[in-house]
Every structure is written in structure tokens, then in C-alpha cells.
């Protein structure tokens, strides 16, 4: 019987996919959100983690960017 799982489909580049995989790995077991790693540029995750992922990416990006102080 065909199985259907509800979630969030993520399409991105290789480094971002890797980042999300790593993010998942650092989560405690109860909060792991990756349902399936589809391939190197696509992931299938829990439906409610969109904001969490977006924020994590934004923070990561902040860390890697230098803004000249005013």
C-alpha cells in the first residue's frame, strides 16, 4: 500500500543541504526533523520547521559576513 507522509519539501544547493543535515544531527533525538534525505540537493522534513531552519540559516550567514561598523 502506497505510503504518504506529510511534510516540507526543501530544494537547495549542496552546501545548504549539508547545513540542514548537520543542523538535524545536532538536535536531540526528539527534535530531529529530517524525514528523508532525498538527494544532495533535496530534503524532506517535518512540516513545522520552516521558520526554525530559516532562522538557523540566517544566523549562520550572519556569522560568516562582516559588516563594517558605522
Amino acid at each position, binding site marked *: 500500500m502506497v505510503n504518504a507522509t506529510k511534510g516540507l519539501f526543501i530544494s537547495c544547493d549542496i*552546501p545548504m543541504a*549539508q547545513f540542514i543535515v548537520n543542523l538535524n544531527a545536532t538536535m536531540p533525538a526528539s527534535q530531529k526533523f529530517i524525514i528523508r534525505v532525498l538527494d544532495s540537493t533535496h530534503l524532506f522534513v517535518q512540516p513545522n520547521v520552516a521558520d526554525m531552519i530559516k532562522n538557523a540559516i540566517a544566523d549562520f550567514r550572519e556569522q560568516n559576513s*562582516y559588516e563594517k561598523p558605522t
Partner: protein
Amino acid sequence: MGHGEKGRPSKSMKPSSKDDYRNAIPEDEEATYGEEIEDDYHDGEGKKKDFSKLELKPDHANRPLWACADGRIFLETFSPLYKQAYDFLIAIAEPVCRPESMHEYNLTPHSLYAAVSVGLETETIITVLSKLSKTKLPKEMIDFIHASTANYGKVKLVLKKNRYFIESPFPEVLKKLLRDEVISRARITSEAAGAEGFTVGKAMGEVVSGHNELLNEAQLAAAAEEKETHSFEIDPVQVENVKQRCLPNALNYPMMEEYDFRNDTVNPDLEVELKPHAQPRPYQEKSLSKMFGNGRARSGIIVLPCGAGKSLVGVSAACRIRKSCLCLATNAVSVDQWAFQFKLWSTIRDEQICRFTSDSKERFRGNAGVVVTTYNMVAFGGKRSEESEKIIEEIRNREWGLLLMDEVHVVPAHMFRKVISLTKSHCKLGLTATLVREDERITDLNFLIGPKLYEANWLDLVKGGFIANVQCAEVWCPMTKEFFAEYLKKENSKKKQALYVMNPNKFRACEFLIRFHEQQRGDKIIVFADNLFALTEYAMKLRKPMIYGATSHIERTKILEAFKTSRDVNTIFLSKVGDNSIDIPEANVIIQISSHAGSRRQEAQRLGRILRAKGKPQDRMAGGKEEYNAFFYSLVSTDTQEMYYSTKRQQFLIDQGYSFKVITSLPPPDSGGDLSFHHLDEQLALLGKVLSAGDDMVGLEQLEEDADDIALHKARRSLGSMSAMSGANGMVYMEYSTGKKPMGQGKPKPKDPSKRHYLFKKRYG
């Protein structure tokens, strides 16, 4: 005041008491000086400064600058008055940024101190600034200039017969100084003291220079032919402390140090002059004119971009003063070069100049001469050989006419203080390409050496064809999946740098660039890496020579010679040693594969390696054959901390007007097997090597002298691990499935690269 709706006094503009003044450091960008308009509903954004109520003059279009009450000055470079305005502004203000069309400067007490030191009077400053300004000068600025400069020029530091005196026509000022603890402790009381304990004497007659209204003598000392001066003596060892106490951020009576070399009958002359073929360029002349403006020699710092010819400036200064000169360089190679430069540009004879390094212990013959040595040799505190000891004694005991200091931005402050306290000199000239230091001890240089005398504009020098027009580029190298996965892992935090430096995509980009420039253009390439692990891996894999800290002097010379002359050696790899004065005039491409912790000075200095202008001037102009004939690549792994550091490092160059083009398509996607690390197993093998190398092995090369390095590295210094020897030869089992492919059987033979289009082909027209 024009727009005083809120009537809030600007903090730094009223030094009513010395405490107020000390608290209000104008460089502090937190303070807001401008008024916010009442209906400005963008309060949340913070410091927008509204100076819109300033009165524009009717002919404002003809005037080149705006001056704001908070000290900020904007200068239009396309104004017909640009040249004069630039020379004036660089003398009175600190440059903030100087790109092509609009410059920004900051007026600070320090910059005004520098202005007065080169002979600008308060009223002149205000008049000229007013003339050049599009608006009526804000009252705050006028007050600020008055307040800042009120005390300048009242106190002088004089060296007479190996003794130091503080001199002033105003005994009250001296008394004030002596109320300071540091100064009073430094004082040496003499028996011949007058009523108030001061020695009273006569000032020497002043030399009036006629040619330029902007170059008058220090305001107060000039008045009478022979003025009475009061003075007291201080302990030579305490001199810099005393000078520091007098700076604008403390007592605010900064001391003038001028050397009247023409009338110095005590110290023997050095018979030397510039050779006829030594033709100083306009900016070199200008910098010297600031130093010798009134016929005396002023101490201070001259800032010129690397490759712009600071040696000629140094040698010229020595030739004008014509007294014994002590020249300090950062390392032995540099010593050789300075000696060479002296002989090249001046009539100095071999017996008048000598070098003092661990290898050469020469002495000059006669009463006067030039000694070239390193900071280290002079500051060294340990036991010396007998011969060295004698030479040091002589250096210490001689009253030097000129102390010529090279690369003052590199030397750690403590070494400076030592050198300066151990030697006595009438005039100190510091040469540097950048006034930027990460340890923020620039103010130290102000009292240790003197104020900034002149700073050349990089872009102007490029336009004039004096330094090369460099195309700067940041090459973005995406991390490979496996490298990035490891980079993200918490347990690899110490290896982060190694991982982003050894990113195979970065390697490929580097390899591609080297090949392109060597084969398509016949360029000479230097690759910088301050990560030794990376340096070694790259150099060995690409089979290029490398120089690092431990490379012997002989080996270095051999490699550099080959690089200069041989057609087969076109690329060399340098560690941080390459940053200091190793002179490689013929390189025109630089590739940075490891950006160490964001040192802006280092970035500028590396760029300097290729700034020496080559080729015919007309070719180098815009539109000429070789508009860009020098290339500076910074290879950066994306999505890593390297991006942060790279941007930070570039700030200085960006402020000088350089722009970094971002290249995202190197190497070309179809390069495939042409370049190394194309196959996954090669990449994984490399990854294994990186991960298993000891933490201390994959860190930065530590060279003692680099103060910037120490300052930036403090937080990041890792405690070296003693283990890390297991499996260090790269044969480590990694838990990646590499599929069924057999281990690579050696690299496929690289094909000749097909015609690649010129990387920086113009996009337009």
C-alpha cells in the same frame, strides 16, 4: 548656531577642563553631534546627522568640500580645486575613505596636532578650510579647531649634547606640565636653575620660508628675533613617557620636535648628497617638503603605498640632514636592500655606510656615517658577542641626526619603545604603507615618533602611473560536500581553518589561475599562505618552490634569484615571511589561499608586492594596452568563516579606492580532469590527511614579530596537542562510500588548456 532647536551642546567641542576633554574622544563614533530634526520619525535608525540648515554659498558649485560640525569632511575629487584641497585636507585631517569620486575625512585633535606640526597655523587652517567649503563653516568646527590647537606649538623637545630639555617661552606652561606626576618624576634638576627652577636661555633665530603662505613657522615661537625660553631637563629614559603625557588626549600640550640641522655645529657632518639621477616624484617631493618645510627637520611619519618609492624618501631625508643616520629595518634582507638603496641614490661611499646584522658586523670609518640594522639587533636584551656589544655601545652613545625607521606599522610597540629609548636622535622619520594596526597602538606611534607628515593617495598614484593598477578579485570557491560536512561538525572546530583552506575546489581554482597566468600571459606569480600545512601541500602538489620561516637565508636567496631571472621558475609559494620586505619587484600576480584572521595591514602589504609599476606609463593609463597589469586574487571558501575574515581584511584597500570583483565561476566547470582533485577519492584522501593532522600542525605559522598576528590570534590560540601522531601519513580509513571505483591510478596527463577568454574582459563597450 544655525539649527539649534534642541540646543544640545556637542560633546567634544568644549574642552573647558582637561577632564571634559579627555572624556570626549572625538573618534568615538557613538557620540552624536548633529541635531535631529524635530519631525524626523526615523529615530529608531539612530544617528542620522542633519546639517541641512548650513548656509550654502552662492558659488558653492565651485568649491570642493563640505565640512560638518561633527568633524566629518566630504571632498569632491572632480572639482578643479581637488589637488590643493587634497594636500590641505591630508595635512589637517585623517582620511576615512578615498575612492574615485568622493573622499571623506575626519577632523580630530590628533590630526590638527599633525597639522600644526607641519607648520600650519590655527587661523590659516580656518581660513583655508573656509575658502574651500561650500557652506559657511559651522561654528562648532571653528571652535573645535581653536580649542584643539590652542596649546600646540607652545612646548618643544630639544636634544642638546645628549641631554633632553623641555623648552617653552611660557614658564606657566612648564609649571603646568610639572604638576603632572609622570613629568615631574622625569625631571632632572640642575644647579644652574633660575628663580622658578627653570633654565633660562635664548631661542635660536628662526628661518623664515617665503614660498607658501601655508607653510609658516609655529605660531608663537616665531614672534621675536630672540625670545627668552625657559626649560628644564628630563631623564632620557623617560622621554617617551613625557611625550605621551603631553599628547592631545592627556595634558594637551603636544611637543614640537624640530631639528635645526643646519645650525648644528656639535655633530659632525656626513658628506653625502643625492645623485643627479635620483629624481623624486611629485608626491615624494611633497612628503619631504612637509618634513623640511621651515628649513628644519620635523619628526613624524610619512605614509606611502608599497612600491611607491619610500626608500628614495628615506635616503633623501638623510641627504638633506647630512648627519649620521641610523636606519632600522625589519629583517636582514631588508637591511641589505636599504644599504643598496643608499648606494644607489646617493653619493655615499662604501666606507661611510655599514650594516649591523647577525651576519655582518661592519663599522663605518670617519666621524659620521650610516648604520643599517634591524630593530631586533638594537632591542635585543640578551647576551651579545663582544664585537656586537661594542657596536651597540657606539650606537647608544652617538647623537644621531636622523633615525630612519622602516615599516613602522609592523614593529610591535614594545620593541619600538625600547629602540627609541636606547638611542638618541634629533629627528625621527617613520616610513610606512599603512597606518592601520589591529592592536590599535597607532597613537603610540604619535608620541614615539611624531605626527603624520604626509599621506599619499593610492588612487592618485595609480592615475599618475606611479604604482600599478591592480585588479583585485575575490574568487568564491564552494566547499565540497564532504569538506563542508566536516567543517560544520562541532568536534572539528579547531580544524575549521584547515578545512576551508584545503577545500579541493579552492585548490583547483588556484591551480587554474597559476596555469592561466603562467601560460597565457607569462606572468610572475606569488602565492601566499600563512597556513603552513596548506602551503606545503599546495606547493608540493603543484611542484613549486616555497619559502617559509625556517627556510635558510641561502635557500631563500637561491629561490628568489631563480624567480627573478629564470624562465622556468614563475611561481613561488610564500608564507608570512613574504610579507616583510622580501623584495620581489617582478611579480605581478598574487594569489592568497589563506586569509589569516583579518589583518588589514597584511592585505595591504601583500598587495604592495605587486604595486611596483611596470611597463610604459601610457600603456598603464585607462584605455591603454595594459590597463590592468597586476592581479590580486583572494581565494575564499564560501559559507565559511573565511568569508568574514576576507571582507574584513579588504576594508583598508576598499577605503583607498580599490574594489574587489567577485568571481564565482573559477575554475570553469568543464575543467574536469585537467585539474587536481577532480575525483572524489582524491578529495577524500586529502580530507583524511587534514583531519588526521595534529591541531598545531594545521594552524597558522607563528612569526614572533608580528604584533597584528598576536593581537588577532589571542582569542584563537589553540593549546597544541601532543598526540596527533597516529595515522598522520594520510592512510586513514574514512567512512564514506566511494562507490566501486578503484583508487585513482595517478593523475591523467593535463591537457593544454584551450584558449580561455581573458578573465577580466570588459563587459561593456
